[in-house]
């Protein structure tokens, strides 16, 4: 070893150390920077919520004060009182929760059964059915308003719970989701059961369905959320005050002259509560909801 090499070898640990330190510093800066960006984003996205919450705790008459009163102290509960006791809000919320639950429950069975058929069973016209469902997958209700209203009217289900529950059952998204999940399940139990001569329904009920539980939860999340936020079909198909769902009821607040911002804010806050709780409890499944459409990837 020549002297310069020895010197270099002595330098290396130091050089590496200082590079590592710089690396660590960079990494830490990167983290801080990342957090800053995310904090900024989070503030921008959630600022409206704080604004609405504070407005809901203020008396509407005080909104015209300058400078604006940022924090409502003491908080004014009159808006919530009015919302719960003196408006249609409880009924709207009950309607929405009922319809959303009913649709979700029905879809869980309908879609898993249909998905099972498409995944595991052979029948004539399977290609046609598959293609038809695939083609009309993305067709929204808004485009079908006129004929759908006509069909519903002829079936006599307008302005009824049936009218709110049955049409959403037609959406084939769940079927594809279930099909994808079922195709991905391990086949051993199923094959064994088949050899044992278990009926298809038995296989479905006792083997597939239990294995499908995580997929069912994702499906439930997707469908419940969509139904919770559904607006145009309930708007068009219901006319009585009693049948209004949450979205339609909140929209009706808008149609009155002379706005009551306190009441509106309270309604906005209360509208978010069930779904926010739902989300908090099932965060992972909501992440999967974002991927629900990506089932073919």
């Amino acid at each position, binding site marked *: 070893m020549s002297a310069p090499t020895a010197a270099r070898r002595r330098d290396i640990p130091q050089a590496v150390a200082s590079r590592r330190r710089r690396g660590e510093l960079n990494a830490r800066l990167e983290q801080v920077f990342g957090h800053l960006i995310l904090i900024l984003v989070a503030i921008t996205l959630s600022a409206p919520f704080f604004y609405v919450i504070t407005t809901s705790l203020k008396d509407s*008459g005080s909104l*015209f004060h300058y400078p604006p009163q940022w924090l409502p102290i003491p908080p004014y509960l009159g808006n919530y009182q009015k919302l719960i006791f003196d408006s249609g809000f409880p009924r709207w919320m009950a309607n929405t929760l009922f319809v959303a639950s009913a649709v979700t429950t029905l879809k869980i069975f309908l879609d898993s059964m249909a998905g099972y058929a498409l995944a595991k069973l052979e029948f004539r016209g399977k290609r046609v059915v598959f293609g038809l469902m695939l083609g009309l997958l993305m067709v929204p209700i808004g485009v079908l308003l006129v004929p759908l209203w006509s069909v519903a009217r002829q079936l006599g289900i307008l302005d009824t719970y049936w009218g709110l529950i049955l049409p959403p059952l037609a959406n084939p998204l769940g079927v594809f989701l279930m099909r994808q999940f079922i195709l991905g399940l391990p086949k051993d139990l199923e094959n064994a059961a088949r050899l044992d001569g278990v009926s298809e329904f038995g296989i479905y009920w006792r083997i597939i369905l239990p294995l499908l539980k995580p997929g069912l939860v994702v499906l439930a999340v997707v469908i419940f959320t969509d139904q919770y936020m559904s607006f145009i079909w309930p708007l*068009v198909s219901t*006319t*009585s005050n009693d049948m209004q769902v949450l979205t339609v009821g909140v929209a009706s607040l808008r*149609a*009155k*002259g*002379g*706005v009551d911002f306190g009441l509106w804010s309270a309604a906005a806050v209360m509208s978010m509560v069930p779904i926010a709780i739902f989300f908090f409890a099932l965060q992972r499944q909501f992440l999967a909801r974002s991927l629900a459409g990506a089932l073919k990837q």
Partner: protein
Amino acid sequence: MVDVERTTQDLTDQFRNGTISRRDFITRLLALGLSVTAAGSILAACSSAAVTAAPSVAAPTPTTGATQGGTSPVPGGAATPVTGLKGNIRFLIGPWTPDEIKHQQVIEAAFKKLNPDVNFTYKLYDWSSGSQEIADSLAQGAHDIYYTGEANYAALYSSPNTFEDLTSRINDPAFASEKAKYLYWDRIGQYGDRLFGLPICWHVEDALFVNMDMVKSAGYDETFVESWDTFVACVKKLTTSGVYGLGIGIQLGPTFGEWYQMLRSAGGSFLTKDLKAVNVNQPNVVAVTQRYIDLYNQGVVPPSGAYDYNTAPDAFVGGKMAIYSSDLTIAAILQGKKPSFTWKVLGFPPGPASRANFNDMGFYQMGSKTPDKDLAWEVLKWWTNGDSDAYWAGVSGTYPARADALDHGFAGYSTQQLADSFPMFQQIGVGQEPFKQWGDCETAAEQQAGNAWTGKSNAQDTVTNIEKAVQKLVFGA
């Protein structure tokens, strides 16, 4: 036996203290047995600031009509009210106020005093889908009595067998004296020889709500609306930093804007009197449109979208607009906000031809599939009699289609400002034209007018486009 006078006194005190609400006050007065007219008069007396002592009520005052029994007055209106009827009546009505059904029930209660065996149900339709709901209900015979706006009356006028033809009942000599007290038969008669409803109200869709304190400090009094030049001078003077002189173009949705009354004030109309040709594209119409565009350009009018139907009342009360245009129901809302200034409801200034404030009517009509038409007719008459109309129109924030409304306590149920302007609006009022596509023409016209107010199109192009739209809607070309 209830001491009516003492209880009335107590109630009045409670009302003036603010212990009970106006609605409770009315309800309890009526429950005491007072006639609708008497209750209205008491309310009017309470509202006027000059009264310091409680008004004295000697005895419940029966109105025109036979009195039946000493202490139970007849809230009458028809020449001889019918009693002892039986049956069910189903209403399909539009919600004028959130308390629409409660108001209907007050009228129902008075009717049931004479006919306790008649039962009523009410269904409210959505204003935006009302025409479909009414058509649907008529086809199925699902309801008996309908409230329709004039646009619906016109649109369904020529549909066969939908509403019951009431011509013979209305023209019956027995009804003649009562018929004389209704307003606007001439306007209803425009649609054709047959009559399908009884008028209940007429609504000014765009009236001016004026902050009189600001107007006075600008050096004008309420006559400033009577000439275009004083009007413009005044609104310009009222426009300062942070205050707009004139808020127009604020109503909810694309219908019933102010352009139609501008058209009429210029001597134009959608169609000529014989309904055979379009009558929109006139030089005066263009000139009137231009005048208002100028106001927008000079910053007197807030830009479109600055305020809307919901947010404008607060802005007016907060002094951000000195004058603003909206429909009559806003009067009650403004009153509820207790502005710190004096305000009035006035009509629009004159155009080249005349002053014209648009108002459209409301009707109660009977479905042709109603099982008991005689009962429904009695109900129709009751709901549109002096007491009922004065009460309902008053609490709903619109004008009653009765010449004798003020005698039945309208002022008490409504606001003072509306009652004061009742005769004026009757004088300068113009209505729809009698063809069924009027509503759609109005929608199209206001949408085009919107382009003028926002500077997207000039006055002549706007008027030309409206003419084309009307041509297409009515004559299909």
